């Protein structure tokens, strides 16, 4: 078994056991939050998914710049793999947020700045894949997608700051709250630690998905190259 397969198997098991452990902690050990009630448990899924989405699109941003600079196919393969995983997480952020919104806000959706800019991010990266599918030349596809990947990422700082820049229904930052230059999360330690644990586990899970998707991308490109050689 090669080292990559070993690493992926290890990450698969760490993610699986980590997710299971976090689930048991959240549902069996944690008390029910006083103001939001039982639906607050959705936050342990929603917030880590948000952070993973940010990271996935940040990876797209970095590797798209790297591709445009060095023109190495491997950078585009990583960017494409991360964009797909990020898109899945982004869809789940919108869905879990909407499900949490119904019992808490009384509605699944409002055209609030945070929600609308997140939907915009999802649509930009849907466009990213439509663009890739519409171009036949591999190099041209990678170049155009890299540009869109860089532009798409610029929506993330807007999403993050939207709760400060506009009056929104969405609550301001609780985990990354900064007061007088110092980080001061506005969440009780009892609820804070399981949330941080969920974020760490979700990031490990993201790395596993990224590697799995990257392997697929590498193989698909090799297959296309072999088929093109056979036709020549």
């Amino acid at each position: 078994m090669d080292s990559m397969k070993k690493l992926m198997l290890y990450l698969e098991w760490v993610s699986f056991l980590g997710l299971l452990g976090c689930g048991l902690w959240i549902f069996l050990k944690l008390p029910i939050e006083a103001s939001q009630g039982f639906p607050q448990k959705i936050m342990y899924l929603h917030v880590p998914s948000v952070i993973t989405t940010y990271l996935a699109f940040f990876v797209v941003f970095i590797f798209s710049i790297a591709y445009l600079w060095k023109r190495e196919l491997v950078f585009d393969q990583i960017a494409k793999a991360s964009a797909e995983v990020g898109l899945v997480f982004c869809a789940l952020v919108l869905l879990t947020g909407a499900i949490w919104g119904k019992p808490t806000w009384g509605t699944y959706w409002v055209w609030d700045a945070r929600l609308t800019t997140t939907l915009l991010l999802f649509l930009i990266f849907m466009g990213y894949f439509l663009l890739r599918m519409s171009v036949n030349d591999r190099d041209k596809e990678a170049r155009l997608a890299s540009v869109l990947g860089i532009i798409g990422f610029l929506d993330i700082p807007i999403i993050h700051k939207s709760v400060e820049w506009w009056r929104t229904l969405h609550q301001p930052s609780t985990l990354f709250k900064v007061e007088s230059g110092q980080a001061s999360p506005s969440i009780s330690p009892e609820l804070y630690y399981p949330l941080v644990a969920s974020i760490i586990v979700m990031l490990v899970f993201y790395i596993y998905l990224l590697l799995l998707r990257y392997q697929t991308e590498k193989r698909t490109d090799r297959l296309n190259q072999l088929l093109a050689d056979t036709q020549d």
Partner: protein
Amino acid sequence: MLIGLEYVVAAYGIWLCTFVCYIFLTKRRLKIASHAVDALEQKNTESSTRPQDQNNK
């Protein structure tokens, strides 16, 4: 009965089902692509060694 239980079940259920399906489909794609690559590489190796064999005869 917990108030809002159905929302929590729906959120966790959708999240779990999405990733179970995603991992299954991605692994399937990887397996199919790997088999196809191996088959084509083997075919290419055979076709490149054949003319050499004929020359040796």
